[in-house]
Structures are given as structure tokens and as C-alpha cells.
């Protein structure tokens, strides 16, 4: 009898720990929502979402978040231009061409890239890639979107490669063999059979990569500058949403001020963007799993 009570208590305690993860999500949403609501009482949501000037730290305050969103989109786009083709080609090589021995060695090494702290990538972007690029691009400023974008692309490449490779390897052998039997080469099989068959898995990987790029902080905080501006030029200093949060956090911001609330409002926008992308990615992956279950 006593042991049955103990068992019951233990199960409830374990359940509580599991539910803590739901509380974490709820906590994130509540904290962000409370401060964002406080922010929106003083600034109209229209000005926040569609304003083209972001100067909350100046005397003449404007709260248009578009320059920060533009900075984030710009750097993330550059990162995806690097990570997507290279990651996909790496995945095709590993999945369709590489001998098993090569795969076993290369994959963990490639994943080392994903394990390097982002502050190290930031240093690399600022101290190595930017000076290197400046030799070829004369107009490139010391802080810019191009260099952190490229380095961020290198950082998320393993994610794209690894998840895409998983998706390609899940494609049944029979489809490949059918293609070979019709006389197709490996390239034709890879591009016309395997990649289309693994398409939703590859798309899920790419969307997750975009989400990672949008939320990436230290590379842009170090190498992209801190000047929110609405521009599509990758050559001048900009500021992303994440870099702005870091910039304000470095100063000692008193609780309850409008300045303090801006980082939660920006954080809320960031959370909603990444959360949506993550949901789409999860949904696509589930669908892919069903296709070849």
C-alpha cells in the first residue's frame, strides 16, 4: 500500500518536470506579452510595425521597427544564399556519392562547425572576413551586412546539410534503382528523383535554417554595426532585431522605462517570426515522415 502511494507521488513529480517545458513556453509568451502591451500603450502598433525610423535611444524618439526587420532580412538572405546551395550540394555528395568511410569521418567534422560558439564566428567575421572582402570591394564599410551574412551562412550550413542528408537517405532505395535501370546517371538520379522525393524534408531543413539565421545574435552584434537603417545595401553598417536587444542590454536600462520595453516588443516580433517558421518546418517534416513511413 505504501509503495503504491510512493509510485503515485513519483509519477506526478515526473509529470511536473515534463510540464515545466510547457510552462517555459507560457513564461516566454507571458513575459513578452506583458512588456509589449506596456510598450503598445505608449506607441501605436501602426507606428511600431510600419514606421521607417528606429531611434528610441535618441532625444527625438521614433519607434518604427522596419529598419531592424530589414537588417535582419538582409543578413539572413545573404546567409541563405551561402548556406542553401552549399548545404544542399554537400548533402547530395554525402548521401549519393560519398563512400561510407568518407561519410563517417566528414559528417562529425562538418558538425563541429555547428558547435563553434557564435561569438567566435563574430570575431572571424569582423577580424578576418571583412578585411578580406575589403580588398575586393572598395566601398565596403568596416561594419556591414555582407561579412556577417556570409559567416552566418557557414554557421548554418551544417544544419542544412545534415537535415537534408537525413531526408535524402530516407528516400527508398527502390526509387534510385528504378532510375538507374532506366539508364540515368547519379546526377540525374540525384536531381530528378532523390531531391524531388525528399523535397518536403529539404524544405523543412531550409525553413529551420532561416529561423536560426533570424534569431542569430552575436555574429551581427559584433560585425554588422549598430545603425538601424532601411537599406538593401549589404555594404553599409546596419542593425538587426537581435543586435538591438544586445545593444540595449549592455547599458543599464531601468525597469519600466519605454526603452526597456522596446527590447521586449522587438523580442515578441522575433519570437512570433521564428515560432511561425518552426511550426511550418515541424509540419513539413511530419508530412515527409508520413510519405515514407
Amino acid at each position: 500500500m505504501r509503495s503504491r502511494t510512493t509510485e503515485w507521488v513519483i509519477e506526478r513529480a515526473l509529470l511536473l518536470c515534463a510540464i515545466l517545458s510547457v510552462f517555459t513556453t507560457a513564461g516566454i509568451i507571458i513575459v513578452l506579452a506583458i512588456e509589449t502591451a506596456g510598450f503598445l500603450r505608449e506607441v501605436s502598433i501602426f507606428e511600431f510595425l510600419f514606421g521607417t525610423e528606429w531611434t528610441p535611444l535618441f532625444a527625438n524618439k521614433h519607434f518604427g521597427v522596419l529598419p531592424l526587420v530589414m537588417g535582419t532580412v538582409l543578413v539572413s538572405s545573404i546567409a541563405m544564399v551561402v548556406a542553401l546551395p552549399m548545404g544542399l550540394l554537400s548533402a547530395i555528395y554525402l548521401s549519393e556519392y560519398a563512400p561510407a568511410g568518407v561519410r563517417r569521418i566528414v559528417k562529425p567534422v562538418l558538425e563541429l562547425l555547428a558547435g563553434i560558439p557564435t561569438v567566435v564566428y563574430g570575431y572571424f567575421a569582423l577580424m578576418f572576413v571583412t578585411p578580406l572582402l575589403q580588398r575586393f570591394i572598395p566601398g565596403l564599410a568596416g561594419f556591414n551586412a555582407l561579412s556577417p551574412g556570409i559567416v552566418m551562412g557557414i554557421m548554418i550550413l551544417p544544419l542544412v546539410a545534415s537535415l537534408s542528408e537525413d531526408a535524402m537517405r530516407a528516400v527508398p532505395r527502390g526509387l534510385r534503382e528504378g532510375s538507374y535501370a532506366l539508364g540515368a546517371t547519379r546526377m540525374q538520379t540525384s536531381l530528378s528523383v532523390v531531391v524531388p522525393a525528399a523535397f518536403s524534408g529539404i524544405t523543412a531543413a531550409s525553413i529551420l535554417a532561416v529561423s536560426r539565421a533570424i534569431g542569430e545574435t552575436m555574429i551581427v552584434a559584433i560585425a554588422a554595426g549598430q545603425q538601424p537603417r532601411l537599406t538593401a545595401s549589404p555594404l553599409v553598417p546596419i542593425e538587426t532585431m537581435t543586435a538591438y536587444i544586445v545593444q540595449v542590454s549592455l547599458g543599464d536600462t531601468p525597469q519600466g522605462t519605454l526603452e526597456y520595453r522596446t527590447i521586449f516588443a522587438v523580442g515578441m516580433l522575433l519570437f512570433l517570426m521564428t515560432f511561425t517558421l518552426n511550426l511550418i518546418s515541424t509540419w513539413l517534416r511530419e508530412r515527409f515522415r508520413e510519405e515514407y513511413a
Partner: protein
Amino acid sequence: MGAVSTDFRAPDLGTRRRHVVDRGFELLALGALLLALAALAVLVVDVLSDGAGRLNWQFMTDMASRRASSAGIYHALAGSVFVIALTGALALPIGVAAAIYLEEYGSARSKLSRLIEINISNLAAVPSIIYGLLGLGLFVRTLSMDRSVLAGASTLALLALPVVILSTREALRTVPKSIREGSYALGATKWQTIWFQVLPIAMPGILTGLILSLSRAIGETAPLITIGALTYVPFAPDGIWSAFTVLPIQIFNWVSRPQAEFQENAAAGIIVLLGLLLIMNAAAIFLRDRFQQQGRG
């Protein structure tokens, strides 16, 4: 591809061309892979060549200083080790308990465990800086932990939890069913079976996952900056309520200064950070190898 031809030379030529194109594509794909690996090599060499000259024993044992030449990383290294140890102490019991529930109890595919599972996989993809905002709002302000080691470790523990839970579940899944059944046959309760049979066997796998998630957490900068871990703390933390700084924040602080001497310090700090990661990963691989041998034996 295409229809069968009666002309025996034409497909031959076509086949040859297709194989040349195929070979070219293979080289292109291999090139993309090598380029990524080359980037890793260049990064490591660049950091080593920038920072190796600055790295010596004094750098390891000196405290922070406003003068680059006499600044060291002892306080930041101690802060990192302290924060990560506490993060592990918080994340391990909670993460393992959650994983046990989902793997051993929640097997009924109930709506609740399904919700928890989806939630965990979503949390794993939330940007780390968002955890920083949660830590700032919840631990630093609401729970008045201030900018302490405890607030930092709690924030990082929440960040590490999804990975700890996922890897623990994988470790639990490798324990053969027959071991559980044998234990039940001897009259053990469910919890006795888990505590005395399943957990000891899964432990190396669980610890491997824990170390890997902590090696991710030790490089985290953004969430700790957001909760307001001060960048200039010229002392090592002496308790869970102490103010602190960590290696990545110290590196960020040095990188942000224009003087070349501080940049050199940053590179040396990065070498120390990467060394620490190397040690942690080696420990994880060592544990995993032992685990695999055990599984075979």
C-alpha cells in the same frame, strides 16, 4: 534516358557526355563540402595565429583589467565553469525526470504527452536571446534573483533542457525491454525498475547528452548579456548570488574595443574557450565509446 535507339553509336556518345557531366557534378558537390571544411580550418588557423602569442600562464591566472597587457581571463573562466556546473545541476534532474515521464509513463499517446513533445521540439528552435528576455523578466526581475550566477544558470538550464530531454529519451530507448520485464517478474514496481535497472544502464548515454548540451550552453553569449551579466566584473564569483561574467562575454567585450591589443586578448580568450569545448566533447565521446562497449558486452 529516352527511347531505345537502333543506332548503336549515338547513345554511346550520349552516355559518355552524360558521364562527364555526372563526374563534373560530383566534383562540384565535393567542392562545396570541401569549401565548408576549409572555412573551419581557416577559422581555427586565424584564431590560433592571432591569439597564440598572447596565450600564457599569466593570461590564464590574471583578473580583468582596463589595461590590455595585464588583463587575464581567470575571473571569466571561473565564472563560466561555475555557471555551467550549476546549469548542469539544474538541467540534469529536471531533464531526466521529464524524459522518464515521456518515455516510460506517457506511452499511452495521451494528448498531454503529445502536447509536451511538440512543445519541446518547438522550444529547441527558439532563439537563445528570447530565453535571455525570459530570464530577465522572470528570474532577474520577478523572482528578484538580480544579475546573479543563479539567474544566469537558471536561464541556461531552460535553454539546455530540450536537448537534455531529447538525448535522455534516446538513451532510455536503447535499454532492452527484456531487462524491464525481468525486473517486473521479480516483483519490482515500475519506479524500482526504472531506478535500479534502466537508469544505471542508460546513464552513460544520458551524461553524453548532458555534456554536449552544456558544451552548447557554455558558448552562449546573447542570453547572458540580455539578463545583464556585467561585462566588467574583475573578480571570480564566490557564491550563487554573486555577480559574474563568462568567457564568451569577456571575448565579446574585448572584440568590441578598437585597440589591437584587446583584439589579441579576444583571440587568446577564444583559444581558451575552444580548448574548453574540446575537453568537454572529448569527455562526451569517451563516455559514448564506453557506453557502446557496454551495450555489446
